[in-house]
């Protein structure tokens, strides 16, 4: 399992350099445009984790992982472990940058980038927790998509999307993100984070059940 995580990290550019570069680029664009015009740039890093999950579980990493003696289960566990660990790190990065942004009055330019209304706007540890859970959820959710695609192809993917209730976690996340009517007025951010964490566990179990008979 640890070996699978190390196997994914054999090319660290995709886990370290690229997401940080994207983040820096979006931040720069945001700053150049005056700071307050496009605040959803941070969402891209969440999308990145989703795509990463799809690619790692559904792409070409599984076949070679199995050749190196991993089982489907250990591959799944190792990949998820890596995604969750990376989420922990990136959550901390977001929380840290948010703290700096707050302390410097928006980097001295009134830029709002790492502060997201309702969702990521509390103390640093709340931001860390919420972004950690959000990134993890999207990563394992992406993994499940990748596995469904590997096992049943495009038709399976369509069916997979169709059976999910419209208020799936991605939608809920996007809705609360933009601040347009949260999931429920009485639900606090930490409450939402708890719901997301529970969903993540369900998704993990679902993906685990799906990969068992995936062909390579």
């Amino acid at each position: 399992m640890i070996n699978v995580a190390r196997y994914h990290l054999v090319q660290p550019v995709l886990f370290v350099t690229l997401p940080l570069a994207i983040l820096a680029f979006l931040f720069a664009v945001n700053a150049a445009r005056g700071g307050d015009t496009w605040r959803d740039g941070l969402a891209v890093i969440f999308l990145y984790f989703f795509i990463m999950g799809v690619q790692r579980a559904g792409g070409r990493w599984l076949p070679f992982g199995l050749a190196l003696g991993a089982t489907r289960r250990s591959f799944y566990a190792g990949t998820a472990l890596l995604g969750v660990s990376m989420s922990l790190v990136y959550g901390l990065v977001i929380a840290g940058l948010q703290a700096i942004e707050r302390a410097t009055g928006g980097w001295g330019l009134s830029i709002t980038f790492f502060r997201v209304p309702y969702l990521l706007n509390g103390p640093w540890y709340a931001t860390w927790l919420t972004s950690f859970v959000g990134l993890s959820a999207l990563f394992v959710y992406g993994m499940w998509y990748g596995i469904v695609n590997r096992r049943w192809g495009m038709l399976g993917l369509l069916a997979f999307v169709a059976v999910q209730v419209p208020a799936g976690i991605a939608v809920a996340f996007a809705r609360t993100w933009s601040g347009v009517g949260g999931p429920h007025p009485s639900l606090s951010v930490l409450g939402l984070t708890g719901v997301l964490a529970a969903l993540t566990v369900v998704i993990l179990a679902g993906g685990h059940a799906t990969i068992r008979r995936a062909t390579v």
Partner: protein
Amino acid sequence: MLRRLVLVREDQVYPDFKVCHALRAASFCYPNWDAGLASSLLKDYRVRAGKAIKGLSRGQRSALGITIGLAARAEVTLFDEPYAGLDAVARQVFYDRLLADFAAFPRTVLLSTHLIDEAAALFENVVVIDRGRVVLDAAADGLRGMVTTVSGPVLAVDSFTAGRPVWERRGLGSQASVVIVGQVSGDDRERARSLGLDLTPLSLQQLVVRASGRSAGADSLTERTWA
């Protein structure tokens, strides 16, 4: 158990990374990984470690698979037709390196191949599968000299093969060619020579062809070989 297994297959799919990445990934999956062996094999096959795997030729990709399979020194090594796109010289390199490394570090190696005679010398055990059915399962040493073609004048052939299990009989005018099962003793050879008969042991490949063709004969052969 699986952690000690390496699988090298003909159509292995690799992630979009370089040769050195694949080697590094393999190196921490196998405790007995031999980096020196890996780099010397890649050098033999003229595969550069810095090259992207998708930019490799078919043969180079096979060479990479072979390199990983051998350098892993896993307890169980599975080679599933590992040499697509490799020429005869490169295949010989594979056989030589496999034998040398196997001699130094004995372990279980399972090699599936269609190039039977070429690889015949490597085997300790031979299993032939035809359309999902095992038609032959025997120790390679037991198979050598186990099946012989006797050819010559019909009468002489008939007298020589009388009482022996016969696999196949072909006649062409006054000449006959009969495939018999069982060891041929020195006395037998003497007798064959005096009768003017030719004795030719079947190669493993010919044996396999016949075993796939007639399973009844193969069954009796299997029994004999195991006995």
